[in-house]
């Protein structure tokens, strides 16, 4: 067959329709573009900048990018994109609206604070005259091998963590703004893959760190598969992956049915099964029971700054995506998903609170605490009212700063083996380092939801929304769980302040201004949102409308 014949086959088989070039609203996508762009620049820096200067250049690029992206978010919000000008951009792939901008702002600020803890280099003792951070000298070297020793001696550092963090943040920015299922999936992968890597990069206890990364990767891949399968089923049901399109089919307002999909379209079984799988993929990311089991292991194994970042920012992004999915795509299915989510919220709150009681490691304790908090936030999600949305937004903002701050404090308490995370070593910390212990007590009280901390304002907001949304029983269980959870938070405070210090207890390292900033911001936000939450509640209230 000649070349021309082939050509004619192509042309006859598929009459060419004109393909429009996609229109991209670059201005509205600016925050994401800045962050992803900076990440790409970071890769260049790894390749071209000398080893000694890399740390500083990377930090500069990262901080500038995050600040600029945050400024862009503020600019968009000020330009009315959070309310009147809210719109769907990038050919229907991404929504720029109130919740998206609120969550992006939160993620960027949390990310900025977390990056400060990434950059901390004064906590570990110097190795061969070089300042070291929490990350391994050379990720590729086998733990305990000669190669590793050589890398340490050479003063290598893993400055790749900065571009990795930027990629993760970039994915997280898209995740709650994603307006079709494929964008959702891609955003998920874009932020998950760097996180898997980051988890494996701990300087100490490297085997544990790598184990946690592998577990996270395996289970994450498993859940991604479910999510993807769910997307396929929902596509089969709706014939589109766009949120608005699916919602139209669910509501039964769609006009023309694609003949190729006539067999499956409108088949509710596909929708329900697919929807459940979509939910599962997102519930995995927020750490809801029974998809939570990766959380304690990964939180414990990952480098603590990464844990703080992940616990705060991932949760914000994933809850944002969950909210959009439930409120934009599936509102017509409210009577189907609400009872199921009730069940998930209840077991998540209870299991998180109960299992935390017997934890002996502070990082695992905080992991279970984060599971319980996921349950509390789910209570607000279930409210299915505008108040529910804004209360969840507020809670996420409040919770993320407490989390980053708390994990930053964990990095300070150290003994010869690095961070002293076993609770028994925290006994009497209040005597030895009253300030650090007091700051940590503030964070614990915020986790427990004691008034005058942001934890109380947030919990009150979500429980109020849930009760008004008709989920009174859920609130009762939430309060009971809070009471159970209060036990182990207060127990740590009691341990710190009312126990005798152990003779060979850990010391509290004096951090650089970087970690101090992270902790200071955490305390400030915790107290401001606790004492005068109204402005931020109003802000979240104004941001609480999804564009469709």
């Amino acid at each position, binding site marked *: 067959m000649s070349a021309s014949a082939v050509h004619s086959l192509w042309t006859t088989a598929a009459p060419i329709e004109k393909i429009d070039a996609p229109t991209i609203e670059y201005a509205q996508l600016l925050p994401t573009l800045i962050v992803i762009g900076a990440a790409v620049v970071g890769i260049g820096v790894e390749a071209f900048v000398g080893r000694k200067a890399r740390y500083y250049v990377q930090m500069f690029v990262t901080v500038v990018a995050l600040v600029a992206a945050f400024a862009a978010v503020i600019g968009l919000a000020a330009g009315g994109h959070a309310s009147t000008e809210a719109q769907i951009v990038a050919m229907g792939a991404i929504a720029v609206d109130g919740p998206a901008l609120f969550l992006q702002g939160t993620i960027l600020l949390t990310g900025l604070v977390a990056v400060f803890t990434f950059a901390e280099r004064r906590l570990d003792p110097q190795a061969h005259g070089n300042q070291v951070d929490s990350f391994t000298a050379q990720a590729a070297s086998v733990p305990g091998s000669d190669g590793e020793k050589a890398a340490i001696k050479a003063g290598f550092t893993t400055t790749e963590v900065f571009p990795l963090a930027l990629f993760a943040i970039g994915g997280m920015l898209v995740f709650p703004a994603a307006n079709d299922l494929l964008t959702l999936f891609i955003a998920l992968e874009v932020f998950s893959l760097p996180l898997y890597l980051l988890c494996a990069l701990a300087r100490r206890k490297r085997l544990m760190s790598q184990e946690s990364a592998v577990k996270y990767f395996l289970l994450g891949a*498993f859940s991604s598969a479910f999510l993807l399968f769910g997307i396929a089923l929902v596509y089969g049901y709706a014939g589109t992956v766009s949120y608005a399109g699916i919602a139209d089919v669910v509501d039964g307002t769609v006009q023309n049915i694609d003949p190729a999909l006539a067999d499956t379209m409108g088949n509710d079984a596909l929708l329900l099964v697919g929807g459940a799988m979509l939910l599962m993929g997102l519930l995995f990311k927020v750490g809801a029971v*029974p998809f939570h089991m*990766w959380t304690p292991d990964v939180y414990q194994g990952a480098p603590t700054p990464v844990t703080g970042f992940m616990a705060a920012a991932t949760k914000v992004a994933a809850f944002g995506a969950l909210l959009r999915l439930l409120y934009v795509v599936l509102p017509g299915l409210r009577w189907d998903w609400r009872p199921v989510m009730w069940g998930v919220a209840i077991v998540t709150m209870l299991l998180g609170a109960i299992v935390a009681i017997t934890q002996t490691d502070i990082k695992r304790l905080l992991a279970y605490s984060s599971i319980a908090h996921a349950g509390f936030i789910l209570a607000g999600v279930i409210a299915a009212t505008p108040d529910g949305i804004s209360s969840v937004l507020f809670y996420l903002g409040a919770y993320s700063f407490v989390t980053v701050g708390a994990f930053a404090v964990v990095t300070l308490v150290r003994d010869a083996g690095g961070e002293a995370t076993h609770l028994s070593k925290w006994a009497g910390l209040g005597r030895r380092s009253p300030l650090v212990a007091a700051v940590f007590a503030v964070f614990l009280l915020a986790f427990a939801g004691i008034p005058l901390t942001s934890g109380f304002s947030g919990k009150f907001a979500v429980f109020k929304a849930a009760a008004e949304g008709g989920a009174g029983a859920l609130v009762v269980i939430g309060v009971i769980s809070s009471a159970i959870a209060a036990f182990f938070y207060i127990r740590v405070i009691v341990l710190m302040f009312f126990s005798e210090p152990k003779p060979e207890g850990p010391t509290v390292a004096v951090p650089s201004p970087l970690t101090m900033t992270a902790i200071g911001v955490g305390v400030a936000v915790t107290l401001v949102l606790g004492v005068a939450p109204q402005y931020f509640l109003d802000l979240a209230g104004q941001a609480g409308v999804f564009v469709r």
Partner: protein
Amino acid sequence: MENLIALLVAAPLLGAAVLLCGGRRLDRSGHWIGTLLAVASFAVGVLLFADMLGKDAEHRALHQSLFSWIPVEGFQADVAFQLDQLSMTFVLLITGVGSLIHVYSIGYMEHDERRRRFFGYLNLFLAAMLLLVIADNYLLLYVGWEGVGLASYLLIGFWQHKPSAATAAKKAFLVNRVGDMGLSIAIMLMFTTFGTFAFGPVLESTGETSEGMLTAIGLLLLLAACGKSAQVPLQSWLGDAMEGPTPVSALIHAATMVTAGVYLITRSGAIFNAAPDAQLAVVIVGAVTLLFGAIVGCAKDDIKKALAGSTMSQIGYMILAAGLGPIGYAFAIMHLVTHGFFKAGLFLGAGSVMHGMNDEVDMRKYGGLRKYMPVTFVTFGLGYLAIIGFPGLSGFWSKDKIIEAAFAYDDGIRGWIFGGVALLGAGITAFYMTRVMIMTFFGEKRWQPDESGNEPHPHESPKSMTIPMIVLAFGSVFAGGLFSLNESFVKWLEPVTQFEHPHPVISVPAITASTVVVLLLGAALAYVMYGRKPVPVTAPRGSLLTRAARRDLLQDDLNHVVLVRGGEHLTRSLVYVDHTMVDGVVNGTAAGFGGLSGRMRKMQNGFARSYAVSMFGGTAILIAATLLMRAV
């Protein structure tokens, strides 16, 4: 003129604030500041009184509204004052006697290093007591009521280094709480019944309210009065309250605070008039207490405790009169005022004696003091004659009227009973007061050196102490006669308390005559028992009644058996319930969750495969549940 009313309270309140916050730099001038402000308050009172006299009887009441205290929808409480004839009487008594006692305390407390604080407390008391009597609503009255309770507590326990004083203060406070509870519940009932606390609306609308509710409120008010005025069954604190410095006993525990119960009942007259059952209870309480206090007074060797018994008994008379309704209110208040004079004078006299006797209070160690302290002797003696109701002196005029009114309770047996009790009380009063008089001022001198060898050197007290005593003695002699002249006191109070002439079951001259006979009998009996033969320095064993009376007629034993033991049993059983059941549930819950936690964490076994299974199972359940929701 009404704008001056707040000054009455403001002056002593300012004094209290300055003295209590001023610190040591006021140690040398504090007592002058306190006295000055008390006198200033008295001056304002006199000014207002003069103004009031210039108006005709129906337009004398003044009203001042200061500010809205608790402005809530459906709940209005104002800080507002009402100064009518009844309040005016109290204001003059409180500030007048109060000022005198301030002056007296300058000398009496001269050697006490905490004198400034003492005057601060005294001023605080004056402020609270004035607030109590000029409040125009029950809620503000309650503030004053609690305020005087606080001041009383602080002053009884002023010498807190003495365990007995600290205990006595605590006892007074606790017993008063019982009464205060009555008042607070009464105020709550008033609010639910009338929707307001103000005297005017409450007292005017008693006609539209059920008698049952009024009886309940009346009984609760009586409970409050019993606490504050040391009436049976809440009388036990007054004897112990004598642990406080003597000026305190004179001012608070004789002349003013303990009469607050009489004020409360008189002020709430409209409620009691409409609730005869509550009135009967008031009369019974008064009658029982007047005998109770008198009997206790007969057996006490401690001069202040004897006088305390007498106070209890005399307030019993007032309560009795107040329970008689419009035939008694005016006489209750009249006796209250005359009693304020002579009892304060008697206490100051007792303080003067103690001052000269190294703070000895046991009358068996006095004797023959009239030669050493002539001024004290004469003033105390006039007070004595006044209290026993010697014809012509203050007590005669007021007490005789109460006895008359008691005989007029009704035409039948009750009139005889209550009249008889009041008459009997007069006889016992004459007996125990004569006993006090003889043991203190007559007979042989019985004092001895104490353990450290200091023999008392009885001497007359300084001018600052004797002058108030002399002033009070004048009141003791003339006040009653002055008030009774042309029935001026009754007419003065009539617009507030109403007045009806009593119609006793026997004729008035017969009552007066028998009163005089009874008091002569009592005095003569005391003379025979204590004047004719030497008084033993150690008390004889005495009869069963004497021994019981020495123990305050077993009031503390009764309280101990009934209340303390009962309370202990109750708390013990509550503690048992708390430990076994409440703690059991709590600890059991905690242990349950702990065990659950331990079991559940085993699921977290560290194997990624198990986690994957959990996720798979979870997804399956999620899908199944979603489909199930659609199916049902």
